[in-house]
């Protein structure tokens, strides 16, 4: 394993410092924590929208800090959720008195730590905390026999929409309502061509032969739900998108936002090849692409692969998606 790092155990710390030094006017780090917040937090008279989770998904989470999106982002170790005490500090640092919405990706570690953090924060101050749990990954069956669907790339859209609603000055329950609307209407499915290599382990998390890929992966280097033979980009796109459509079953003529998300190690050129097929599938089925995002939004370190996300829109969501945002990783004008 070769990585542009110093000590593996220092990666998160040094990355956060490097991020702040790239955006000194926009971001700051809470002392002695792995929490970054908007420099102007708490923003007065505004509901705060915060998130967090393991590191290794950059630009998620701190890349989405800024006007129109997140107020705070708590970073855990690589692929490990942040600890409850730091999440609690973040909540308190971002609260302007109007309450805080935690955007949590469904996975037990994050959920448990955010819950504990909410309790801590409410004990220590009188902040009002609400929470939404994103579970857009359609690879995993949502049944009694699993811990539910994972939260993956669709989370970015929750940040965007909830952040816009908060930016408009709306109340906590309204911000939560639109976040849940996104959660109800978004679905994602991903594939890995290669495993990622974590700094600590220094080796691939799983082995994939030259002619194999994993379908239905999460974002933590876990293997997916199925190992299949390597296919063409068009075939892969079909497999991913069909599953997403099955879940959402948008009606003909529906307006949607699509994301082709890179897992970190895949060149942008390949993501555009996938987008080409995705958009031709949209046309065939008579869905209207209102906006198409292509890039690295929610990654797994250096993994090669991608995910396809579809969000079914209504007028309110379109308005909120078009609301200005100015963050290191996403700008909407």
């Amino acid at each position, binding site marked *: 394993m070769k990585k542009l790092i110093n000590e593996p*155990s220092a990666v998160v710390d040094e990355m956060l410092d490097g991020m702040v030094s790239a955006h000194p006017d926009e971001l700051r780090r809470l002392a002695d924590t792995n929490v970054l917040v908007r420099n102007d937090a708490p923003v007065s008279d505004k509901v705060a929208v915060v998130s967090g989770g*393991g590191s290794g998904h950059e630009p998620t989470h701190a890349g989405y800090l800024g006007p129109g999106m997140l107020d705070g982002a708590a970073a*855990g*170790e*690589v*692929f*490990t*959720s*942040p*600890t*409850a*005490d*730091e999440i609690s500090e973040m909540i308190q640092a971002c609260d302007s008195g109007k309450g805080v919405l935690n955007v949590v990706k469904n*996975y*037990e*570690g994050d959920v*448990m*730590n955010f819950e*504990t953090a909410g309790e801590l924060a409410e004990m220590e101050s009188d902040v009002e905390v609400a929470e939404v749990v994103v579970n857009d990954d359609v*690879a*995993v*069956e949502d049944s*009694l*026999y*699993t*811990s539910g669907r*994972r939260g993956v790339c669709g989370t970015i859209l929750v940040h965007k929409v909830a952040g816009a609603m908060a930016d408009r000055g709306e109340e906590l329950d309204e911000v939560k309502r639109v976040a849940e609307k996104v959660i109800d209407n978004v679905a994602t499915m991903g594939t890995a061509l290669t495993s990622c290599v*974590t700094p*600590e*382990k220094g080796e691939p*998390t*799983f082995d994939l032969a030259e002619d194999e890929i994993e379908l239905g992966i*999460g974002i*933590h*280097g*876990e*293997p997916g*739900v199925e190992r299949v033979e390597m296919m063409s980009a068009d075939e892969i796109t079909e497999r991913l998108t069909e599953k997403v459509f099955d879940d959402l079953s948008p009606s003909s003529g529906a307006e949607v936002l699509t994301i082709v998300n890179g897992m970190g190690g895949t060149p942008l050129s390949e993501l555009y090849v996938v987008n080409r097929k995705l958009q031709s599938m949209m046309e065939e089925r008579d869905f209207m692409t209102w906006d198409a995002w292509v890039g690295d939004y929610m990654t797994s370190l250096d993994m090669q692969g991608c995910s396809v996300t579809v969000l079914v829109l209504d007028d309110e969501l379109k308005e909120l998606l078009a609301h200005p945002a100015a963050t290191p990783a996403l700008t909407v004008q």
Partner: protein
Amino acid sequence: MGTTEQEAVRAAVERVADRMADEKEYLTDLDSAIGDADHGANMNRGFRAVHEKVSEMDDAPPDELVKTVGITLVSEVGGAAGPLYGGSFMTASAELGDGITAESSVAFAEVFLEKVKDRGDAPVGAKTMVDAITPAVHTYKKSIEEDDLKPVEALTKAVDACERGVNFTTPIRATKGRASYLGWRSVGHQDPGATSTLFIVKSIRETAVE
């Protein structure tokens, strides 16, 4: 330097910390197969911090020490294991307020198990640490209360029980934790969290034997 009980807690902590350092890669390998390859790093980071904290607490009573173990794990481990182990040590420590006796250790064990199940909402058979903690706690309780064994003997039985719990996780399908995402592909792999539980129980027994 402190009572035998304080010493015992500190010795156990040191033993666990050493064990986690030794088994870091093994735990991470287990987590690679059905998780995200960090359980070894998580546990090692957590108990290294616990060891440091506890070494500095010269005069604290055992329940304070154990509570500190819990608080430190919560704020150092993260992930699923952090709140599960940490929260349970924190809560269960209250049972040791009057010292470590046969009875109080049983109470501790029971509350610990309860708290893990509460937080994680995992039943037995979900392929998690619950599968290792449950037999260990049940056997310990029964050995003390029904069989009138001494704590050291009961711990030896508990280690054996815990080991069976760990082995039991291998052939079953995960329905909780990251491994559940794998569905049937999780069958055939040993659960990392159950395995770290075994290392903890073993370390406690070894300390008690001395």
